[in-house]
């Protein structure tokens, strides 16, 4: 099927197999490898990208379903002005270690900061539970996100 979508603000038109996953499409066809493959069952969040501004697990999302929609990956987010605050806070609080979950985590955080859904510690713990980080123990991420939410 032919799909036409916006990826990180640029128009993309491609022919994709009906069963092709958005994650494979982004990584293999577009070379956007910031989104990672891990659990493949929509649990871990490493493959998170934004579709029309909302976080989705691209490992369980058909590329064909992205037709006509706006997709943002970490490569796109990193080019936006609001990214600097995220980068600064995550760096200062060491909210990352191996970096494998980090792109997905940042995309979820950026979307939920935008919608104001990270305003308390409880809300952060609940709403970021779909992004697993095996390294950090979450503390550094929590501190970075609390600071970002408070600064809004």
């Amino acid at each position: 099927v032919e799909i036409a979508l916006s990826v990180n603000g640029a128009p993309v038109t491609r022919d994709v197999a009906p069963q092709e996953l958005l994650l494979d499409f982004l990584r293999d066809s577009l070379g956007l490898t910031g989104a990672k493959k891990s659990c493949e069952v929509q649990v871990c969040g490493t493959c998170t990208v934004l579709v029309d501004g909302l976080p989705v697990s691209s490992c369980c999302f058909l590329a064909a379903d992205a037709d006509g929609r706006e997709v943002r990956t970490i490569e796109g987010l990193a080019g936006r002005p609001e990214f600097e605050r995220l980068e600064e806070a995550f760096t200062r609080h060491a909210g990352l270690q191996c970096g494998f979950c980090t792109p997905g985590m940042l995309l979820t955080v950026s979307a939920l900061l935008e919608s104001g859904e990270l305003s308390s510690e409880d809300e952060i713990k609940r709403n970021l539970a779909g992004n697993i980080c095996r390294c950090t123990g979450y503390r550094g991420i929590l501190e970075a996100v609390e600071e970002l939410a408070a600064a809004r």
Partner: protein
Amino acid sequence: MTTTVAAPGTQIGRSAPRRDAHEKLRGQAQFVGDMLVPRMLYGKVLRSPIAHGRIVSIDTATAEKMPGVVCVLTGADLADIDPYYGHAIKDRPIVAIDKVRFHGEQVAAVAAETPAAAAAAVDAIVVEFEELPVVGDVATATAPGAPLVTEREIVPGLFHGLGELEPREGNVCYRYRLDKGELESVFARADVVVEGEYTFQSVYQYAMETHTVIAQYEGDQITLWATCQHPFLVRAEIADLFRVPVANVRVQVPYLGGGFGSKSYTKMEPLTVALARKAGRPVKIQNRVAESMVTTRRHNTSCRMRTAATSDGRLLAREVVALFDTGAYADNGPRVVATAGDAAPGPYRWTAYRVDASCVYTNLAPAGSYRAFGATHMQWIGESQVDEVARRCGLDPLEVRRQNLCVPGEEIRAGGKPLDADLVGDVEKVAAAVGWDDPKSPLVGRGVSVGLLAAGAHPVSSAVCRLEADGRVVVLVGTTEMGQGPRTAFAQIAAEELRIDADRVTVRGADTRFTPYDRSTGASRSTTIAGLAVQRAAADIRQQLERIAGTSDIGPDDYLALMRKHFGFAGGELIGRGEVAPVGTGSYAEGPVFWEVCVGAAEVEVDPETGVVRVRRTATCADVGRAINPQLVERQDEGATLQGLGNALFEEMVYEDGLLLNDTLLDYRIPSFDDLPEEMTCVIVENEDGPGPYGAKGCGEGALAAVPAAVVNALADAGVPMNELPLTPERVWRRIQELKEEGKWPQ
């Protein structure tokens, strides 16, 4: 151009930002799965659907003719080499030969132009098995007349590091024993004897990046891009297997998406190389999570332990018999068992102890390293018995530890490194951090735990520092960056020695063709041992500069002028060399390099209606000698704490008749944000008593051993003593019902 001058003591001991943060936050950091090599094929593995069986036939004819398929590899392709490997025991064929010994074992592999073509061809391979009786657990494996998992005799691998290996006894491939004092007579005169049987479950390390390897085999040159923690040990095993010189094998390790021991030693590399050899083209194999779960896991264990004490709480003797389920192949099992044996008595002033720990083959997936191995297995058991002694003697558990813990300089194991840490001080600090003496409600409990982990592995590392003609420094060292932060710590160490700012130092990743030898990245050794090599390499540059100057009275602002004086132009570079080799023989018995401290405390609340255990507070002690980067130390402890909570509360690989039942993250749960305790404290202790640079010693593992033990003790303090992990609501609820029947609940 002038160099930024840094005053002495300013580059270490500060929380310098991670050097890899920028790349990783922007999604630019490259992992093996992100890499493409020209002409690369995709490999897919056919894995055994049964736990134990004879391979009657493999028909690959249909698969080989499918579109896009380049070749299919089976055991028959390995007749020209000795295909058995294993760094501890050479017991594992690259791909199954004649028999399969676990659910998920590699039976055949396909190389094809696309992942989809490879997967389709794997489905078209027809294998006929004759099923054999399954040895599903250590009890079955050690019963008289048990079927043998392997008939092979023990062939020592290159790197077991455990002295002479004894012959296999049935399914037992390795035994570690310690014996001190007159055990039976001490037990006979003890006032208090605590005893029990305990089980610890199998756990999946879950590095979020699965095992991934790209291999290229051209002429007699083998090139690998691999998710391996120990590139130099993989290089040696690949050279040994494929009979090429060590220098012909190049192992490159980009960023690793977590390791935790799951990527230690050799995993998917031999099969990928064998497939690339047959295909004549580079091949990438990327495991799915279900495949990585059967590539390595944490040993499940059953243990009998008894502890003797006087009525006033003096610990006298301990006896430990433990069986470790290493699965179908030993992997790092022998080392895990030896480390567990060392951890089993606990760091107390014993009159007598006896430890008998066995590494047992079964028809489960191979078990190997996972952060704080051995200590995590044993500490919760031993420490729960110390708390039971305290309860029976009517003493505060903290007081029993003050009375009995070894002090610095005391013997931990005969012939080994004496205690090199202040354990009493450490445990008092974590107890205070969870409000040890504060009032609490009956359903709330608090616990502490103390243990030691033999750390450092074999102390061989080397490093090279290059002072470039622009005044910047490049550090070459074989340590792999898997999130723990060596590139940041090493930059700080080199900068400190050269009195420049750490921003001016770049630390490169491991590539065995260019980076000098480093034994491994694990056992909390990198800052201590590789860091010492980096310190020496940087100091070597400094000495060269002083020689050129003819005086030691030089500063960073003089470096460029001195280089120009030496080389006579604006180029050239000074090369500093640093090496660490063992003091003494470096044998396991003389070790360890240092004892990693495993000290923690927890406060829990139990809900007797549901059995849910809520961890409210944790505290761990990072007794690191000197914190090169305090923030990274804290983050290591916090990460280990969450993994410890997962191990203690819910993570469990469920096996039935040798079949793994929960091989996805839908039914194997990993700690999420939701599982964060309300308070998580890391106490950093800096007594400058480590063998590393500036008195540093390693960290990052101890908390994983300490936290489950502290949680078990806290739950017992709330009235629910447990002898089986994980502490799922069902297990805890059932235990409370038993306690009710015994009239012990509510306590």
